[in-house]
């Protein structure tokens, strides 16, 4: 009972205490009122995202509204009329509200339109049918096929939708396995594992990537193709490792497996338009250097085309996961407040990070991120850690030989997606767990191993890329 009440009282009480403390009790010289309020909002966001008294997207909206009330130039009267030197830098209301429509949100919206159209015109299921065929009937290779397809789909569709689709293909097959056969576990686990890993490959694969994009700007900016050239090799290596692990840890005694997926490609004009737009968008994303359009601009093309030709209609618009967009917006707004009020730099200056070895910092931040992502939403984890990590990366010159800010941000972002050891870690895990074929400890076993190997692979790869002067 007490535990249940804490969940609601802590997120209210602690931020209030932070607000009411005298400014000199923070060990930060010259802390302004605005900065103090940002700390309170940050504390509230952390507690709300960890304890989840309200839905995680609601926390994001709350962040934005509190920022508007407390630290914007059009906020509450008592929040804006202190002496300037005491008050600090107020943010403009338009900047805060614009986080709902930042280019990154638009990039995701484009991705949602593509995914929605692909599902509606059965492109996903038909591609799965065709792509799975070459993998034959040997359970080992069928599983490899399932993992590859799941990963590829989760690069462009939500990990949850991909998992739901692949598990529904697998359900009739899993029912045929003998009760004692561990192969059932392997198959049921292969889907969420591949979906979680696959999301890393593209900027639109999973929301933490969007949050990371926000901090990869100016000389550190990364194009769609550049992201994929780092993400895809990582995903390929990790999928292969995950596949080996699954067949070793959960060997199957079934000799043959037959996935029977029904369907034919739709051949209506609208369906062709969907195929064409899909292909065109991805090509334009990959060839950013040739035409000069940013990936954000390209993302608006499918939105326009699908709306004009009524491929995505009024009803479909309701099915767009707006909560994900809000969730990311809140993170961007939190980062904006930390950055623009000068608080992040203030905090980073106050702690002698420069005395730490930069590698220790990269490893420490990534491990923390992995740990958090196992117990809470990956996006919320990224929302909390990335703004601080980004400021830290920008201020630490000792990090430069190791690839600087980019390497730090990418390794933390990848770590967020590698948190997959519990049913609550990610929605794909929850769905797979609901299939009833998996025990929590089996999921934990594979999840922890993949998390640790994943972080090591990420370090190794970013190290090589940095040495090859690809990044940094």
């Amino acid at each position: 009972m007490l535990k249940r009440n804490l969940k609601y009282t802590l997120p209210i009480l602690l931020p209030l205490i932070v607000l009411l403390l005298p400014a000199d009790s923070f060990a930060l010289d010259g802390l302004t009122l605005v900065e103090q309020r940002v700390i309170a909002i940050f504390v509230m966001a952390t507690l709300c995202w960890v304890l989840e008294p309200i839905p995680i997207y609601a926390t994001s909206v709350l962040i934005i509204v509190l920022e508007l009330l407390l630290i914007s130039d059009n906020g509450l009267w008592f929040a804006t009329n202190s002496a300037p030197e005491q008050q600090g830098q107020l943010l403009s209301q338009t900047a805060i509200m614009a986080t709902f429509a930042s280019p990154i949100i638009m990039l995701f919206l484009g991705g949602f339109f593509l995914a929605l159209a692909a599902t509606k015109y059965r492109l996903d299921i038909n591609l799965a049918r065709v792509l799975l065929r070459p993998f034959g009937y040997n359970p080992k290779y069928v599983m490899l096929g399932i993992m590859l397809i799941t990963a590829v789909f989760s690069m462009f569709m939500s990990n949850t939708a991909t998992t739901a689709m692949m598990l529904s293909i697998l359900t009739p097959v899993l029912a045929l396995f003998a009760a004692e056969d561990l192969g059932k576990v392997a198959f049921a686990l292969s889907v969420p594992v591949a979906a979680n890993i696959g999301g890393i490959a593209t900027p639109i694969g999973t929301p933490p990537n969007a949050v990371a994009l926000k901090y990869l700007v100016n000389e550190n900016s990364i194009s769609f193709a550049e992201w994929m050239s780092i993400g895809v090799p990582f995903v390929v290596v990790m999928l292969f490792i995950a596949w080996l692990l699954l067949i070793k840890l959960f060997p199957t005694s079934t000799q043959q497996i037959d996935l029977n997926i029904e369907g034919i490609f739709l051949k209506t004009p609208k369906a062709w338009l969907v195929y064409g737009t899909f292909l065109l968008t991805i090509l334009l994303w990959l060839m950013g250097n040739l035409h000069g359009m940013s990936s954000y601009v390209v993302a608006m093309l499918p939105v326009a085309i699908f709306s004009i030709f009524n491929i995505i209609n009024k009803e479909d618009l309701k099915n767009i996961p707006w909560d994900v967009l809000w969730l990311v917006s809140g993170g961007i707004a939190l980062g904006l407040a930390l950055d623009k009020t000068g608080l992040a730099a203030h905090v980073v200056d106050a702690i002698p990070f420069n005395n730490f070895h930069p590698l220790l910092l990269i490893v420490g931040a990534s491990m923390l991120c992995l740990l958090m992502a196992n117990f809470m939403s990956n996006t919320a984890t990224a929302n909390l850690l990335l703004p601080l990590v980004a400021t830290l990366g920008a201020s630490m010159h000792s990090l430069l030989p190791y690839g600087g800010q980019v390497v730090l941000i990418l390794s933390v972002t990848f770590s967020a997606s590698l948190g997959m050891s519990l049913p609550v870690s990610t929605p794909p895990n929850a769905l797979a767990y609901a299939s009833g074929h998996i025990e929590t400890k089996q999921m934990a076993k594979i999840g922890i191993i993949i998390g640790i190997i994943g972080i090591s692979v990420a370090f190794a790869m970013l190290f090589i890329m940095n040495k090859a002067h690809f990044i940094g």
Partner: protein
Amino acid sequence: MEKINIICVDDERDVLESVSRDLDYFSDIFNIEECESAFECLALLEEFDAQQKYVALIISDHIMPEKSGVELLTEVAMDNRFLGTKKLLLTGLATQADTIDAINNAKIDNFLEKVWDPKQLLQMVKKLLTEYIIEKGIGYEEYIEKLDAPTLYRLLKS
């Protein structure tokens, strides 16, 4: 987490208790209500509506004095306030005319014959609850352990 309601209607006390017992599996997350007549059920529906509570499923017997199960479920089907509510008719003595009415007017989602197999009832209810939760846009995560996984996958895919 909001408790979602399941209402069982039967004029025979022991049948009602046995349905409730079979549904005990859901009772830690869902609220199971027992009604001994169609009127009691309608009164309960009014009460739930006033409190804005979810009624996911009505399991009703057909042959009851005063108002039959099909009449009750028809009334619920016509009521805008309970648009998504799933309807299961539990009956042993339905005539063809009753069956036609049940499908055409009461728009029932499932038919189950008395004496039923508890496992079959459980599976049917799981499926109907999953459909209700997804169609209503309720967060499925909190109820996931009592839902029907294949139905969940099918509905989430689109």
